[in-house]
């Protein structure tokens, strides 16, 4: 973008390198037109476009404010007020929702979600890296592309179909369970470990997708330089590749944690509430499965979840920026 020869050298490069410096703009549109015709440098034309450009983004901003802003407000307000079916008519400030959402069964569920997400994200990271490396360095282009597109499908394949697929495979009357008699060996899909096995089915491909650009960014020269200096393959990975990959790996781990933490459909379709997870509890609470007067408890649970997810993102974004810098 910066060095390519452009058909309109003077104006284009001026406009590109301007960095948004505002110029004098008494009648911006007219000056833009003359600028195009005369080929003179024209910071004013840029300004004119800028003012109209805001308009093009307006629908998105409005939509976002309504579609995202209102629910956010509803959660923020609802989590701290009594619900409308409460004895006092609702709307008074309270922290009971929040304290209630961090106690008893809800706390167990929150902790269960965090445990499940940590475990599955860790396994998926450890498995995903060698898999991505094996695929990225493969000599067959068709194979690479097939795996990448398959990963794209599977990474988004959470949800109900995934649950049914595993019920058919490893469930109590699943094909593999019956063939190998896994039930006698203590296997049960509808448990914490069973759910972990299922989650990996979309987390590992997600890791492959996330880490592959970073792996492709590892320059062949680095490996050559390392081996010219007498480094073994192991030393190369230990001292060159992994340090470079670390931000991407951590970022990927955090991303997987978030995906696993937010997952709802798979667990709902598969185990119902036999494994305590925060997303299940919210679903239950929203379906009216709470005591009278605690309707806003679900909103407080939602707030808990957002707080955890925000922590996750606060970790992820700097890591991602760091890895982008390394691999640029």
């Amino acid at each position, binding site marked *: *973008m910066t060095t390519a020869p452009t058909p309109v050298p003077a104006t284009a490069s001026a406009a590109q390198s301007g*960095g948004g410096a505002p110029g004098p703009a008494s009648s911006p549109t007219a000056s833009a037109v003359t600028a195009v015709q005369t080929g003179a440098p024209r910071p004013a034309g840029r300004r004119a476009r800028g003012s109209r450009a805001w308009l093009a*983004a307006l629908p998105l901003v409005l939509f976002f404010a309504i579609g995202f802003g209102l629910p*956010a407000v509803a959660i923020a307000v609802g989590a701290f007020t009594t619900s409308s079916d409460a004895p006092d008519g609702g709307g008074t400030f309270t922290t009971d929702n929040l304290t209630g959402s961090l106690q008893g069964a809800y706390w167990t569920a929150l902790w269960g979600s965090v445990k499940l997400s940590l475990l599955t994200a860790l396994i998926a990271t450890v498995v995903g890296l060698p898999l991505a490396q094996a*695929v990225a360095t493969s000599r067959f282009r068709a194979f690479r592309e097939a795996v990448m597109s398959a990963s*794209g499908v599977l990474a*988004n*394949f959470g949800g109900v179909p995934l649950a049914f697929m595993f019920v*058919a495979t490893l469930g109590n009357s699943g094909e593999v369970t019956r063939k190998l008699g896994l039930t006698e060996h203590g296997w049960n899909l509808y448990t914490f470990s069973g759910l972990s096995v299922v989650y990996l089915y979309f987390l590992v491909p997600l890791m492959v997708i996330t880490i592959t650009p970073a792996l492709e960014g590892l320059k062949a020269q680095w490996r050559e330089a390392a081996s010219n200096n007498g480094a073994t393959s192991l030393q190369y990975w230990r001292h060159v590749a992994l340090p470079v990959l670390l931000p991407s790996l951590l970022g990927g781990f955090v991303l997987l944690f978030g995906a696993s933490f937010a997952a709802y459909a798979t667990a709902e379709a598969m185990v119902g509430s036999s494994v305590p997870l925060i997303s299940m509890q919210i679903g239950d609470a929203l379906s009216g499965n709470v005591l009278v007067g605690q309707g806003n408890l679900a909103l407080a649970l939602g707030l808990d979840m957002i707080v955890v997810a925000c922590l996750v993102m606060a970790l992820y974004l700097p890591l991602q920026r760091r890895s982008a810098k390394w691999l640029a």
Partner: protein
Amino acid sequence: MARLINRIRFGRGLVLLVCGIYFAVPMAASLWFSVDDNKGGTTFRAYTELLNAPGFTDSLVLSLELAAVTVVVLLLLLVPAVLAARLGAPRLRPVIEIMCSMPLVVPVVALTTGIIGVLRWGPDYLQDTPFFQTVVAIQDPNFPVVLVIAYVLMALPFAYRAIDAGLRGVDVVTLVEAARNCGAGWLRAVFTVVLPNLRSSLLNAAVLTVALVLGEFTTASILGFTPFSVWINSNGKSDGQMSVAVSMLSLLIVWLVLLLMSAVGRGRKAARS
């Protein structure tokens, strides 16, 4: 050195083998499960009776409609904003970027909680205002607009990334300058020069969105609507075999569509160069 290469080959083979088994076995087993008649033979009952299953067509049509509308709304909102940020108002970029990352931060369940919170304002506080009619109208079970809103929000990050990646490979500023210098108006420059160059990334964004909408379960099920994924789940409680069959079919369809899209994209590139 040769031994080292051998060892790497071996390690690569092992990794691919283990992962291949893990990813292939559930698919094969589900396929078998969907045709297994439990007497050692095969039956295609689950597939042949699919069309007659109660609710199958209705829910599928609803899902497809939701997907189409979501894609259109999403692109209409997102593309002008992204192009504007690239072409005229660089200061918009961080704003759009933040807006498009926010839905990633909020888990879908939590977003749904918020939506229910807003929908409850309807009967609670707005009983006598026109807003109440709006709140009722967007929950029409025949075409729940509220789901479109939720789906557009959920697809925003993925669509934004797809389009942003496409824009990175195209020098839009220069293209537009060139088109403008040749006398094209703004709209013409965007429609005949910029958008065709973004075709594959727009397609990509659309495919991701369609896949997301067709598979989405959380919001629809909690809000009590019955698009396809919710139907699969409720049907699975009564007819597990058929639901497994449908699950396999849906996976297959998404995959085929993705392959087709990438093939189209590649064919286009090859034809151009």
